[in-house]
């Protein structure tokens, strides 16, 4: 068990290093010299000025040296400064995490709470009309992108019914009810696909589990269906669900970019988009690395959760 954790942690660090290097490589190798973002095209005639700026930003050093410097700072929490606002990238990220974090947490919790009962009902009555309805609905929901769902919700619930604000964000520290009002529609928009994915996962996994011999054996002991479903069948299926939730964090992170853009939320995704449009390469690099790290860390955590839930792995050594 100890060695399992150790292996995972070593792998985590290795992946993080590789991810940061790849991001650095991407930002620095692809066309579109950073100097274009630093100095207006007109001013680039002044060779001396350009050279000075290059030196100031360390653009003249060999790439590995620059990566080493950047990594050294990054380890200490310093992801550099935005070349547009000159503010520290890390403090901008920290400032915006609460918005994106809340959005994602609300989405995941809401989706899981909705998907588990749907998936269980669907699997328990496999082949019934209820199952066909839920499965069909999930298949359809899987095809509705966040921006389409978001626009629909804005049109219906904000414009027509006026129940929620169409855009904007109220911080939870300012007003809890106001915060709830602003988080609902974005989270719902993100949930459409998430619910569909989780429902399908729970259903297909549970359908397989329910055909296992040990379920038959539990039935032959005279246990109640509900007990068998939740105490025997759902546990192995929950492993798959946890994995999928972990893997889906990536999709969700992408989704928040779109939803924050649509609902004009001051989150990480919106900041990334702004940075992209402003060609603020330090900011793009910082946010991309940060997001990738969150993703990798979450998935390592999922592996560790396995350890708690699945005794077969725990006792592997």
């Amino acid at each position, binding site marked *: 068990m100890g060695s399992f954790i150790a292996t995972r942690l070593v792998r985590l660090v290795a992946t993080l290093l590789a991810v940061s290097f790849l991001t650095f490589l991407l930002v620095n190798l692809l066309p579109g010299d950073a100097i274009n973002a630093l100095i207006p095209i007109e001013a680039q005639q002044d060779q001396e000025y350009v050279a000075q700026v290059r030196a100031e930003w360390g653009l003249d050093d060999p790439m590995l040296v620059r990566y080493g410097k950047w990594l050294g700072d990054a380890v200490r929490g310093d992801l550099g400064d935005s070349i547009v606002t000159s503010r520290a990238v890390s403090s901008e990220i920290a400032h915006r995490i609460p918005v994106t974090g809340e959005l994602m947490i609300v989405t995941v919790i809401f989706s899981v709470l909705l998907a588990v009962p749907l998936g269980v009902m669907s699997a328990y009555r496999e*082949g019934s009309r209820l199952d066909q309805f839920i499965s069909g609905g999930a298949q359809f929901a899987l095809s509705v992108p966040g921006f389409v769902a978001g626009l629909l919700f804005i049109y219906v619930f904000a414009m027509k019914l006026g129940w929620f604000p169409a855009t904007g964000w109220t911080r939870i520290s300012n007003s809890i009810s106001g915060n709830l009002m602003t988080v609902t529609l974005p989270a719902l928009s993100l949930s459409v696909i998430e619910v569909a994915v989780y429902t399908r996962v729970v259903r297909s996994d549970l359908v397989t589990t*329910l*055909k*296992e*011999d*040990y379920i*038959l*054996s*539990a*039935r*032959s*002991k*005279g*246990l*109640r*269906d509900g*007990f068998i479903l939740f*105490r*025997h069948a759902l*546990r*192995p299926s929950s492993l798959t669900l946890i994995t999928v939730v972990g893997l889906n964090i990536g999709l969700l992170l992408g989704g928040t970019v779109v939803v924050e853009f649509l609902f004009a939320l001051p989150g990480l995704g919106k900041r990334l988009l702004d940075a992209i449009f402003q060609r603020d390469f330090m900011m793009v690099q910082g946010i991309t690395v940060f997001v990738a790290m969150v993703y990798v860390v979450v998935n390592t955590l999922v592996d560790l959760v396995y350890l708690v*839930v*699945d*005794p*077969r792995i725990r*006792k592997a050594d």
Partner: protein
Amino acid sequence: MADNVAGSPLLEVDDLRTTFTIPAGDVKAVRGVSFSLEQGRTLGIVGESGSGKTVLARSIMRLNLGSNVTTTGTAAFNGSDVLTRSPGEMRELWGTEMAMVFQDPMTSLNPLVRVQRQVTEHLCRHLNLNRAEARQAAVDLLREVRIPDPETRLRSFPHELSGGMRQRVCIAVALACEPSLLFADEPTTALDVTVQHQILNLLSREQTDREMAMVLVTHDLGVVAGRTDDTMVMYAGTVVEHAPTASLFADMRHPYSEALMRSIPRTSLPSHTRLAAITGRPPDLIDPPSGCAFSPRCPYVQDQCVNEEPPLVETDDPAHRLACWTPVGSPEARAAFEKNLAAGLQQAVAVDISAAPSSTGGVDG
């Protein structure tokens, strides 16, 4: 084994039929099986894969899941039909009155649940035991099925136990609420031969001690011999022969029973003994042949066999029931065999050739 107890039988099955509906058609897995079983006795059900023996056991237990299964007929347990009971009523029967040991101990225990809970969860439900009582009961049960160090084993997960140990746990689970009828569905097929021997001994010891009725389903004639009171041979969803085990082995009347017996290698026979293989293959259960299902592979086949399905009837020995028009050893059978051999019928030729062990000629048609 316990003596035959007078009175109404514990289990009385009459014309049981189970059909699975699949896209290709209706698979008639069990096609009209009738038998009865007294308290405290053991019944062996022998057949090859697809003979319907497992489906039969599960049908009586009402454990065939899925909306595509239909079961008709009656299966009276203690005088009342289980096939018409509601799922709730079945749950009261499961575990306490009827229990089952499954083929693969690897898959019939939940890999994520500790042994203790798997052994005690239904005890708690059926007998309303508290935690401490249930734990004590579990320790006693594990000790009874000869698991060393039961206290430690209770905290184990199934994957930490060997195959034989797991099957012992499964037996403990099945015996926990003192059922009066135990189905053992190929309980040793997945195990090694030495472990199989121990498990079979354990099962028969428990059966005797508890005066339980037991149905032992297997594909291996060797497993039922000497361990069951009665044996039922199944082929293509029907019972072809049903007799007290001793008299069945002493006097096999059905051509299929005989063929099965002659096709298995035995340690008592000299090396390189030519085996009498059964030609052809088992019938399609979606569209079973008319008449006797074994007729296309039977060396004693005659016209009546192809046209008319033989009923399962008592022979001169009332305990020995048989479904055959040309029982082995009868003059009809001898005449039919001579005729088939003369006509060059494949299955008859095969039997004839293998009767002469020196021959190495192919029996392919």
